[in-house]
């Protein structure tokens, strides 16, 4: 293992600005496109990506090649590719950094992936708080179009593809693939599990939704081969590098590109270790929809299989670090507040269950908890598996993590009849209401 791991996704990252198309091309950018379109068959491209072992970086870790193979050769046209840049998983900001570092890597990855499934149109779905990045991508799409990489008959290959930006207006559920398709079609963004996206997705046509980090791995795979990609990983089962975003009580929160399977301890070292005076308590390894991991997992390999083997999930690879002075009941309450608010409301276990869990956690946090709340919390969290989409089981994950590893901390709240940490764990904004009389309107931000 060498000390300077190879950078694949962030090699053109600069401190002050995105890489230009010239800079991207100088490092071999768009070479894969020229060597692929019209020269390799889409099936070959699919096979290479399958062989590379690339797994989805959007949270679920589904093998990209297998997803693409779901679009059969005789499937209908037009076909759509949706690069998912919704990135609303709390703690996750890697896609923003990636798009900002090297927009043309992202664009080339999208075009190659579209070629693999013969998609004629791509819809770059992006959240509103990334408006600056939406504008950046629109500008760079123009540049790519001028260079002949987008539009009709790209590089004389006979393959035509264009990409447009779709601006969202918020809500976490829009990141879920089938909800995203509904959102693009101008419908309320509920998930749709009745149809298979690869057969009947956007406008009823075959559709592939992939995270932008996943798609950005494709140019490298095509240029340097599946074996090279597999070799990048530190684990036997893994493939490629991974963008780990580290936030919370560390000295240098940032995105770090490392071989997938790098140990948690090493990633935290890269982030400068704990803030001065802070002592490690736990991490959420992959965004808000994963379980808290205590110190005993400090050396775990951050890859899909090793985490699964110890009962955890890589999720988005967004590592949120909590220190000893942070109340995990309060943190879980914050997370459940978020999930309860973001629930799309379509199915009952999620819509009704999450506020119930929130209420239990709230009472515990303010010192009104009872012993029987602990089994009740566990039961309610388990019921989230009965919901319609993966949102609610994700929401239950931090609650289960709290129960599995930090039950002692819950009990301290019960026995002391208050939060043993400083704060109330949550801002009492609702109780702030009767303040100075202000002549103001009170919109409900629904």
């Amino acid at each position: 293992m060498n000390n300077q791991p190879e950078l694949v996704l962030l090699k053109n990252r600069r401190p002050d600005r995105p890489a230009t198309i010239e800079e991207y091309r100088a490092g071999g950018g768009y070479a894969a496109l020229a060597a692929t379109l019209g020269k390799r068959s889409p099936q070959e491209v699919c096979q290479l990506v399958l062989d590379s072992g690339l797994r989805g970086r959007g949270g679920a870790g589904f093998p990209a090649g297998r997803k693409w193979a779901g679009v059969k050769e005789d499937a209908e046209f037009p076909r759509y590719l949706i690069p998912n840049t919704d990135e609303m998983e709390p703690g996750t900001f890697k896609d923003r950094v990636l798009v900002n570092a090297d927009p043309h890597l992202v664009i080339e990855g999208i075009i190659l992936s579209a070629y693999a499934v013969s998609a004629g149109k791509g819809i770059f779905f992006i959240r509103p708080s990334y408006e600056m990045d939406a504008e950046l991508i629109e500008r760079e799409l123009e540049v790519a179009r001028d260079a002949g990489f987008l539009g009709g008959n790209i590089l004389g290959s006979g393959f035509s593809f264009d990409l447009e930006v779709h601006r969202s207006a918020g809500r976490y559920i829009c990141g879920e693939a089938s909800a995203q398709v509904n959102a693009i079609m101008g419908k309320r963004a509920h998930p749709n599990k009745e149809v298979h996206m690869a057969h009947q997705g956007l406008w009823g046509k075959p559709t592939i939704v992939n995270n932008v980090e996943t798609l950005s791995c494709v140019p490298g795979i095509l240029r340097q081969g599946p074996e090279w990609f597999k070799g990048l990983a530190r684990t036997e089962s893994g493939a490629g590098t991974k963008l780990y975003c580290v936030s919370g009580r560390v000295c240098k929160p940032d995105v770090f590109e490392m071989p997938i399977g790098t140990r948690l301890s090493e990633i935290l070292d890269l982030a400068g270790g704990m803030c001065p005076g802070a002592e490690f308590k736990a991490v959420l390894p992959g965004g808000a929809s994963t379980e808290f991991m205590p110190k005993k997992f400090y050396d775990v390999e951050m890859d899909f299989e090793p985490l699964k083997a110890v009962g955890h999930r890589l999720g988005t690879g967004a590592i949120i670090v909590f220190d000893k002075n942070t109340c995990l009941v309060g943190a879980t309450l914050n997370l459940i507040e978020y999930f309860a608010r973001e629930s799309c409301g379509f199915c009952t276990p999620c819509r009704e269950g999450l506020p119930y869990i929130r209420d239990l956690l709230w009472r515990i946090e303010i010192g009104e908890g009872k012993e029987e709340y602990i089994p009740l919390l566990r039961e309610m969290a388990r019921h989230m598996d009965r919901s319609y989409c993966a949102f609610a089981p994700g929401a239950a994950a931090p609650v289960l993590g709290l129960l599995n590893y930090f039950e002692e901390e819950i009990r301290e709240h019960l026995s002391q009849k208050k939060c043993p940490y400083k704060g109330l764990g949550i801002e009492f904004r609702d109780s702030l209401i009767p303040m100075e009389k202000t002549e103001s309107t009170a919109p409900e931000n629904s």
Partner: protein
Amino acid sequence: MLPQEIRENIQRLIEAAERPREQVINVFYILQKHYGYFSDEAVREAAALLKMTPLEVEEMATFYDFLYREPVGKFVIQVCDGVVCWMFHENSIFDYLCQKLQVCAGQTTADGLFTVLPTACIGFCDRAPAMLINGVFYGPLTPAKVDEIIAQLRSEHCDLVICK
């Protein structure tokens, strides 16, 4: 009344699209920008332009948190209440802003300048605690920085990008 120019802009957008429905959010944003929020008139205009029923428009407009169905101030301050920002909230930026501006969540200051809203994690966890004002990012924040930002917005004319 919607000015003719804006109406024509929207019509062009819809006609250029393969399917009008894929322009719903863009049309909503344009109307919101014109009216200052997504007013009842905006709902009616959107319905007519997109050939949707007002109920269908309402169903969409009430779903999204960047569409405001009630009046908001000139500056919409969206304070991140994601778990990472929460961690750094000993002196809660959210509460600080509310106290400073004398409003509670969702309210607008009497001078019509500021509305404060709690917002889902905005994806700037590396610079927590953070907030957006009309789509522009600010962070990491301290009460002193908040004072500075507010003072600047109060005194200078400034056209921040609204999330389109």
